[in-house]
């Protein structure tokens, strides 16, 4: 009987002592662990899109990126597409137009289980760099009709990344929408009330309706061009911005030039030489949008 009692008491004392020691160690390391974790997450976000501050929208998944003045510069999100050896943790940064600012793939030390030397090469800048400045439509392997060159002998991993990034953009692009400040096309208004969801708003200042802000989409040279227009009661265009991802490098890009977009404020401008298709599409889009929504302020 004394033997049993001694067994129980010894085991009890040892277990309690261990538990007490561990609780002290935990209390000491816990803040450090949380801090380290947060710093690692942040450095991953910074590689995807550089910003002053990241505001968590969906925990551990989606962040709004803000500059030092608090303006939205884009979003960052994380996706985990299934690769060859397991899920691939990818952090993707998008600017306000939905163009990829950068992607970062976790290394093997951070949980990537792709084959070392083969699939694991997706973490290398020669591969991840290809995604920078691309739009969702181009993010696919070359053999799938996209613009991403797969890594030799690692097609499954390469495809998992490009498909994962594209699907991620499709899923999270809606979070970019509120990032487009309607104030930019209608500076005088102080608030906006929605008339048609995601399409049409009244621009309001001091309870007066000053005009309209609307969003439209036209077919450009390669991709759709999404744009936002501010239109005042006095039939004046107060501003035009292009929201969608870049069209073709160099030429179609010209429709983004401030100089061209500012011309709308005076009168409908001429098409841009060398980017006729894109600029005409935008001009037509603005015109037909005005024609369609005019009645709301008359």
């Amino acid at each position, binding site marked *: 009987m004394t*033997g049993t009692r*001694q*067994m129980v008491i*010894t*085991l009890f004392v*040892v*277990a309690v002592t*261990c538990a007490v*020691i*561990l609780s002290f*160690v*935990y209390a000491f*390391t*816990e803040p*450090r*662990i949380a801090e*380290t*974790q947060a710093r*690692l997450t942040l450095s991953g976000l910074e590689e995807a899109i550089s910003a002053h501050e990241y505001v968590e929208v969906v925990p551990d998944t989606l962040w709004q990126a803000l500059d030092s003045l608090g303006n939205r510069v884009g979003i960052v999100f994380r996706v985990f597409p299934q690769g060859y050896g397991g899920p691939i943790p990818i952090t993707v940064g998008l600017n306000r137009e939905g163009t990829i600012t950068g992607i970062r793939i976790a290394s*093997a*030390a*951070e*949980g990537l289980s792709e*084959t*070392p*030397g*083969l699939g694991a090469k997706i973490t290398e800048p020669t591969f991840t760099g290809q995604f920078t400045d691309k739009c969702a439509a181009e993010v696919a392997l070359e053999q799938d009709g996209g613009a991403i060159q797969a890594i030799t002998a690692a097609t499954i991993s390469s495809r998992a990344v490009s498909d994962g990034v594209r699907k991620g953009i499709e899923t999270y692009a809606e979070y970019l929408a509120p990032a487009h400040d309607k104030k930019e096309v209608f500076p005088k208004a102080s608030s906006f009330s929605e008339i048609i969801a995601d399409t049409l708003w009244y621009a309001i200042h001091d309870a007066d309706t000053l005009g309209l802000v609307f969003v439209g989409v036209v077919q450009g040279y390669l991709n759709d061009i999404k744009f936002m227009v501010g239109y005042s009661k006095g039939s004046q265009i107060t501003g035009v911005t292009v929201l969608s991802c870049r069209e073709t490098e160099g030429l179609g890009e010209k429709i983004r030039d401030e100089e061209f977009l500012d011309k709308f404020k005076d009168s409908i401008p001429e098409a841009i030489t060398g980017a006729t298709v894109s600029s005409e599409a935008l001009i037509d889009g603005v015109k037909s949008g005005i024609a369609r929504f005019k009645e709301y302020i008359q």
Partner: protein
Amino acid sequence: MTKLNIFTRGLVKENAVFVLMIGLCPALAVSSTVRDGFGMGLAATFVLVFSNLIISILRKNIPNEVRIPIFILVISTFVTIIDYMMQAFQPDLYRALGVFVPLIVVNCMILGRAEAYASKSSVVNSILDGLGTGLGFTLALTIMGTIREILGNGTFLGLTVFGESFRSAPVIFMIMSPGAFLVIGILKALINKYVKRELR
């Protein structure tokens, strides 16, 4: 046996991995790079030294019937401490070692030394034994890590050896699981042929 002998026995003559063939699971799994192998070895050494110390102190008060649960409690406490410490101060290494840090608990090398040595020996001798065995384990993992990292990744501690052309197309096989078996098998064969007999 002199103090030096107690220390060197675990280091070379009864090296856990190469001679006794215990603790093979982490030796195979966490020796793909020098840093991982070295880090794993030091973590195991820390646990081994402190569990040997505590068990040696308690050895006269531990009832024989419950000695194994008590050993495991002591070992797992130190494993948890090193686990938290690594998470807080060495997060990269922690993630590289992955599940093998908590699995130090069931490394039979540590329980083996507690049972076979620390529970019967003085405190100083137990510490020396733990240190020797642990550093022997570290040595084995570092040797394996060196061979596997150089051949399989073309690097040593992340620095390129043999030039870029080899770095871009190394013997990938070596850093994958089969490479671990191959390396340990060849090392064991070499040790059997050239080293072990002389030490006997």
